């Protein structure tokens, strides 16, 4: 499914500008530990986290992640958003908890691998 479909289905708010929202999402990943995402996340996945530190953009770029969803209305820092926009990594926010976001993605058919 496309990222823009997810955005609509889950009522996500897109915080970056000029990023590609039409890319395919083929799997899902949830973790706040950057080392874990680097080790295990797959390219094309949508990453759910509460981490809003600048490092998440570098990790997402490195792994070919389709987009990052921040849970609990987490507001990303300005420098995180700027870097994400520059590197074409969409960052979205949701009022749902990470558990519920993952649950919804799972219900839509996404899996971890």
């Amino acid at each position: 499914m496309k990222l823009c479909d997810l955005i609509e289905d889950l009522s996500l708010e897109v915080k970056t500008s000029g990023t590609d929202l039409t890319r395919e999402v083929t799997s899902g990943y949830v973790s706040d530990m950057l080392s874990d995402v680097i080790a295990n996340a797959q390219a094309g996945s949508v990453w759910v986290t509460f981490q809003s530190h600048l490092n998440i953009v570098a990790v997402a770029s490195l792994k070919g992640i389709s987009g990052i969803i921040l849970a609990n209305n987490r507001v990303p820092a300005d420098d995180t958003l700027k870097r994400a926009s520059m590197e074409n990594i969409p960052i979205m926010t949701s009022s749902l908890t990470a558990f519920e976001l993952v649950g919804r993605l799972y219900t839509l058919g996404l899996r971890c691998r």
Partner: protein
Amino acid sequence: MTLGEIRGIVEALVITKSADMNREIGRAYCADLMSDVLAFSVTHSLLITGLTNAQVIRTADVADLRAIVFVQGKRPDIETIAMAESKDIPLLVTGLSMFDTCGRLYEKGLRSRPGGIS
């Protein structure tokens, strides 16, 4: 749902002694950052995490959480397990990813907030 039902849904092993599998658990959260657990979790919920250090148990104690599921087969060390036993916090380990663990439990009706958001 009960802890026993949760164990079955995510195919977990129980690693603490004398855990009460009939314990009712109404809510679940997943997180690896402990301050987020403290900011958002509600008493008597289940924590799903990949972090296995002693602070996870202390966070669960301070936040009055009901049980912890560790994902990806991760397991805390003996001292940490003993600490959890002394605080009556059951620990479970599943080989599933955090994503699939949360997904399965959500599918069976578990939510983060009372009343649930569907």
